[in-house]
């Protein structure tokens, strides 16, 4: 598959990158690791006239820690995220999630910013140009039908990023920059459950940095991923859990799930099932049940929605059991 023609631009600063993106609007696309966008460009799902390579921008390829927060530049490779001693100690779920993305080569290429912005996927969308000519375009490809849910007015493509649930469970924020300024928002606010456009990023806006609060004393976290092939695959379901205990009761619980909808979701009811209570097999089972109820899968990519929903319960239980040390 050949790529179609484009102009390759290499801004040296965020300001310059934002100016280019503002000027060219929808005709421009950002490239960092390239592992997601280049495949979609080969499939003619996106045909930018301008490819903006942000890898030469200074200052967004480092991990900094001041003891209270980890600041991870958007360009930090997933392999560097998982190798970082600071991330492993202070945000273990994130290190585990980065190590679970694709395979080694993809982790060497892919960046944390890119993995957060991973495009949603669907069997009816992520296909070659020729394959897609066999039927009317789906919603995500600019048509008016969702083949996953034909009566639907919205697109049900799946979000399959691994690092986002870990970051959600860890309470991360993202610093977004654009030509009109910058803003820092909670990661949860970045996502919307719409397969067609799963983030609120404005055209020309990009993630510059991910800010992760350092785990409080005694807080543990993990990321568990179920996939067809252990060696290299997107998650069918992924669950991140962070847990803190004080005086024998749960003082902090955060659970986030990927692979179920068009955005990762925070399992609020699960958290409430644990907070203020003793963490035991019983309360964990209640939390898992709450996540099961909250999960409303529609897509039948790889497994049926019912199976996907049950996986949420299993993985939430396993993740909590692991972080609680009850295994």
């Amino acid at each position, binding site marked *: 598959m050949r790529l*179609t023609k484009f102009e390759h631009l290499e801004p040296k600063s965020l300001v310059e990158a934002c100016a280019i993106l503002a000027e060219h609007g929808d005709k421009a696309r950002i490239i960092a690791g*390239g592992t997601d966008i*280049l495949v979609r460009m*080969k499939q003619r799902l996106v045909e930018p006239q301008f490819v903006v*390579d942000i890898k030469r921008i200074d200052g967004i390829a480092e991990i900094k820690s001041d003891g209270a927060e980890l600041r991870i530049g958007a360009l930090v490779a997933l392999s560097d995220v998982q190798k970082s001693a600071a991330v492993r100690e202070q945000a273990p779920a994130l290190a585990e999630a980065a190590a679970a993305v694709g395979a*080694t080569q993809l982790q060497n290429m892919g960046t944390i910013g890119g993995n957060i912005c991973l495009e949603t996927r669907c069997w009816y969308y992520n296909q070659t140009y020729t394959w897609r000519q066999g039927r009317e375009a789906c919603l995500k490809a600019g048509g008016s039908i969702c083949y996953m849910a034909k009566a639907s007015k919205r697109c049900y493509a799946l979000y399959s990023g691994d690092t986002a649930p870990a970051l959600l469970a860890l309470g991360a924020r993202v610093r977004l920059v654009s030509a009109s300024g910058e803003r820092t928002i909670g990661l949860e606010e970045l996502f919307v459950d719409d397969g067609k456009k799963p983030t609120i990023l404005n055209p020309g806006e990009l993630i510059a940095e991910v800010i992760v609060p350092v785990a409080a004393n005694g807080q543990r976290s993990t990321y568990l991923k179920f996939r067809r092939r252990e*060696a*290299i695959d997107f998650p069918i379901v992924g669950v991140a859990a962070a847990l803190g205990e004080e005086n024998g009761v749960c003082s902090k619980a955060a659970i986030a799930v990927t692979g179920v909808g068009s955005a990762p979701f925070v399992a609020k009811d699960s958290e409430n099932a644990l907070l203020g209570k003793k963490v035991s097999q019983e309360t964990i089972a209640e939390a898992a049940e709450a996540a099961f109820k909250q999960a409303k899968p529609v897509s039948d990519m790889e497994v049926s929605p019912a199976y996907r929903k049950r996986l949420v319960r299993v993985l939430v239980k396993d993740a909590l059991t692991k972080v609680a040390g009850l295994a």
Partner: protein
Amino acid sequence: MKRIIELNVNGVVHEVVVEPQRTLLEVLRETLGYTGTKKACDSGDCGACTVIIDGRAVLSCLTLAVEAQGKNIETIEGMATGDRLHPIQQAFLDKGAIQCGYCTPGLVLSAKALLDENPKPSREEVKKAIGGNLCRCTGYVKILDAIEAAGEQAN
């Protein structure tokens, strides 16, 4: 718009004229003749096109040639010294870790990136390092054995 870039492949600097939409894989194979780097899925799933850039195993099918400018690119052609195979290649031969051979260059380079950084990897570490390289003749055991043997030999 065409651009003149310099690609450092196995220590040899090539000046090439490329269009930005050409992948490193295409330029290596079609412009420079490094056909040891294989093209298979062309979409990041199989690892046949693996090369090493600045010490790390990456996929040349998902790397733009213009973005590899000024970096150290290692391909399978740079492994042997004259008629003497690289220890990893020799280990693949000795352990019978080759069938059709199409995945072999990618696997050897993934193994090299691993062993350069970690000469004594555990079996699990070897598995993770080559998890992105598919062998469709089936059978990874001999490949794992070969990489472990190459690691031991280097010590």
